[in-house]
């Protein structure tokens, strides 16, 4: 990141956020991925403190991680209740839900993990993409009941060890979003794509499909094809491609605006 700012001193808002944070008892690993305190520090470093200053209170940045165990969630006349225990961002979760409840709605309505977005609820947009057991999937077409024993990673769980995931950093640098609504899905999708490319998985555009799968360096069109399951109505696609290319190739990707 060339225009990365120096770590700024905390302003009053940030200090207040931090105070609120550490009066609690921040566990190191929560379903939110990293400790709140570490995350906050990182937040100041990565974007020079910009974001910490944005329209957020502590509640919004890290909605209270109600530690979730069966019975502690308010259950409103559940019909056909199903129990499901699984991991979300490394933390165990046990839910009793209506059999109809999708993973997407469980994340958003029960676990307050609202980073995963609902764009269509029918598998047509990719906004709800999460990673289950290493694979990118759509949480809107996944029943919570089917998540028994699985490992779910959401956008909240990508940052690790005080660092944003490189894909998150690249999205910031390349402005890989505008409204930000498709972004969590795009990033989860892109993170999983890096793995697929390493495993040499093919796409419809792969010319030599019969060859043995080996780690592949994807062309721009290959990345486009493989990211086509994530719709961005704001039209950040070229920037998304730049961000993914940079992470995929390890080389800086250029941005192409100019003044006349």
């Amino acid at each position, binding site marked *: 990141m060339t*225009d990365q700012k120096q770590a*700024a001193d905390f*302003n*009053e808002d940030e200090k207040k956020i931090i105070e609120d944070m550490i009066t609690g008892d921040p566990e190191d690993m929560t379903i939110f991925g990293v400790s709140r305190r570490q995350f906050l520090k990182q937040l100041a470093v*990565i*974007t*020079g*403190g*910009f*974001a*910490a*200053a*944005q*329209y957020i209170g502590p509640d*919004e*940045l*890290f909605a209270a991680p109600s530690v979730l165990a069966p019975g502690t969630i308010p259950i*409103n*006349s559940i*019909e056909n209740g199903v129990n499901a225990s699984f991991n979300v961002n490394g933390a165990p979760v046990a839910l009793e839900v*209506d059999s109809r409840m999708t993973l997407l*709605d469980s994340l*958003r*309505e029960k676990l307050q993990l*609202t980073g995963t*977005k*609902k*764009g269509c609820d*029918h598998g*047509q*947009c990719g*906004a709800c993409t999460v990673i289950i057991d290493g694979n990118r999937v759509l949480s809107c077409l996944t029943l919570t009941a089917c998540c028994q024993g699985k490992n779910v990673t959401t956008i*909240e769980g*990508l940052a690790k060890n005080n660092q*944003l995931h490189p894909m*998150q950093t690249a*999205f*910031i640098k390349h*402005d890989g979003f*505008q*409204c*930000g*609504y*498709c972004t*969590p899905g795009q990033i989860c999708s892109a993170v999983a794509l890096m793995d697929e490319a390493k495993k040499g998985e093919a796409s419809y555009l792969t010319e030599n499909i019969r060859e043995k799968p080996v780690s592949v360096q994807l062309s*721009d*069109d290959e990345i486009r094809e493989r990211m*086509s399951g994530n*719709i*961005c*109505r*704001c*039209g950040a*696609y*070229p920037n998304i491609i730049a961000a993914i290319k940079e992470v995929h190739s390890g080389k800086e990707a250029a*941005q192409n*605006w*100019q*003044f*006349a």
Partner: protein
Amino acid sequence: MAIIGKPINRVDALLKVTGAAKYAAEFNQPNMVYAFPVRSTIAKGSVSAIDSSAAEKSAGVIKILTPENAPQLKAIDPKVKTGGMLGEQLLPLQDNLVYYFGQYIALVVAETYEQARAAASLVKVNYSKEKHAIDLNTELPNGYKPQKVQGEDAQVNEGKTAPVIDATANKISYTYTTPTENHHPMEPHASIAVWEGSDKLTLYDSTQGVMGARGTLAYHFSLTPENVQIVSPYVGGGFGCKGSQWGHMLLAAMAAKLVQRPVKLAITRQMMQTNVGRRPATQQKMAMATDDKGMLTAIRHHTDSYGNKSDFFEPSGKQTAVLYNAPLREITYKIAKLNIGTPTYMRAPGETPGTFALESAIDEMAYKMKMDPVAFRVLNHTAEDPSKKHPFSSENLLDCYTIGSEKIGWQQRKAEPGQLRKGKQLIGYGVATATYPAGRSAASAKVQLRADGSVIVQSATQDIGTGTYTIIAQTASETLGIPVEKITVKIGDSSFPPAPVSGGSMTTASVNPAVMAAAEMVRKELLALATADTGSSLKGRRLEDIGYADGHFFVTADKTTVDSYADIMRRNNKNIVEACTTAMPASGSGLGAPTAPCMEAPIDKEENSDKEKYSFHSFGAQFAEVWVDEDFGTIRVKRFVSVQDVGRIMNEKTARSQIIGGVIYGIGAALMEETAYDHRWANPATRTLADYHVPVNLDVPDIGVHFIGKPDPHISPIGARGIGEIGTTGVSAAIANAVFNATGKRLRDLPFTPDKMLLKS
């Protein structure tokens, strides 16, 4: 320190890449319940009976709202200015009349979303059906000729061009059609309504206009506006469909009032097709003529379109009043009423379909005259507003053509179609002019400097992905001489100083002058304190000799003589220095007079959007390279270059994103977007994102963006015009023109799907 313009990362970027940015539906409330609407399955008539007995017995159901039991809303009164704007003149569940397929006719409230949705499918409805109006050409004879279009005459020189055009062989005359399109921002509309007692309402809502939403809700629920708070910190895109207020907002508040619990109503993607506006279809009859040298002598542009429950219609003649120097132009409209959900503003309303017609026709005219399409446009360029005869506030369109031609490699283009190919792909190049008016409205902002050097800026504007948070921070930073890191921007809340709807590409032009003026007042107040303060090294200095940077003042001639903001505040026992200003453009405001404590910012009339004197427009040139499969007719945009003359650029990074986003919206309109209605039921057959196609990643090529970057000296002291919409204009024409150049096939009916290409000989 010139931070304005810098391509800094978005200040809200971290929140967006970590999932921490919160959108309307994500403000869950204690004790909250869920609402799910029932929609009509006829397009015209009335609901004769609703049998909700099965639904009521369904588990978790709390209440089913129908016209029988729904809270009564204060009726629409066309004479009253509510401060808001209903998307359609139709209040939900106030009577049993049906005006379009999919209209809300009941609402189920239940403990969970699953329960509400399931119960909604159990509500049985009987209708008394009437014959609906759905075919544009059938209904046009009963249509009306609007008198005004966005404040201007809607019928200009009717019938006057015929003698000129008919008299020459140098003419073209074609009809261009565009379909109904839907906005489909990725975040579906959502409202969470929370009542405190019976006279205070908070609505978490996904809106492009918190003030408008406040006005509408306050009016129809008979509340004082101050007792209605709209909260919308992050908006997952809008493109116009979140600019006005639609039924679900009222329904959420009605339901919450009735069940006395907070209610969440997040509409489905299917409802986005029917209930929150659309761009109406147009049929545009274009004709034009030139003299033998190719100078335009007359342009005629007639638009047929439709409306429903509002006066809105697609103003697709707008650009034809502004572009080219034809001495005579005829611009007219005829509008039918159809039983289709009400049309509304959609990204570059008017210009998006309008430039498709005009810029395709210009290309056809150039081809007829055997002229290069760029040269033809240059020849017919106008340096002043040809309708109003005002100078443009700032205009560099010719540079746009030149730069674009160079960047796309226009010289590769062959004048005759079908000359370039690679394998089975036919290659062609096309150009079109882009334009959009540069509006500005009154806006207020409050800037607050705290003793610790931090700054808070507040304004009831919105960031719908446009970068508003970021450029407000940049504006405040530059004006105050305080680093961006120390600035907190608070927007998207109606309790902040009023600002206009995020629409019409006017947020930047409107809000930033207010931010700048307020920041300037803060800085000046500080400086006044310093120069009057015996404890200050600046005591008695002349104001013009003093500079500022990094949180302190200094003497320009002697940079070691400094006084920091913090010291000045400490010595004067100030914890806060703040100012609220309203920046009011010279010609009209839209917001009304500033409300205390905001005062009007003093702005010289020459740089304050004086429409009596100048015509305010942005311009650009769009260049497309397309590859068309010669067998299948599938079109791929392979490269795109967009050169934009949009005034000062506030942030190169976010500005570029706005333009590429606009271009992609245009690619969608050109190649795939269409809401198709089955005339037997007047229902949209394209119900979801699986059949209303919008571009996916592989549809989109590299898009080169180039800015002229010259500040507009007359629009505001900042010199920035808006950029949210112009990127879409001209795109479908540039693609149509490139397709013609590639294949010799001239399509005049959007979108260009393979079936149309195949059936066209």
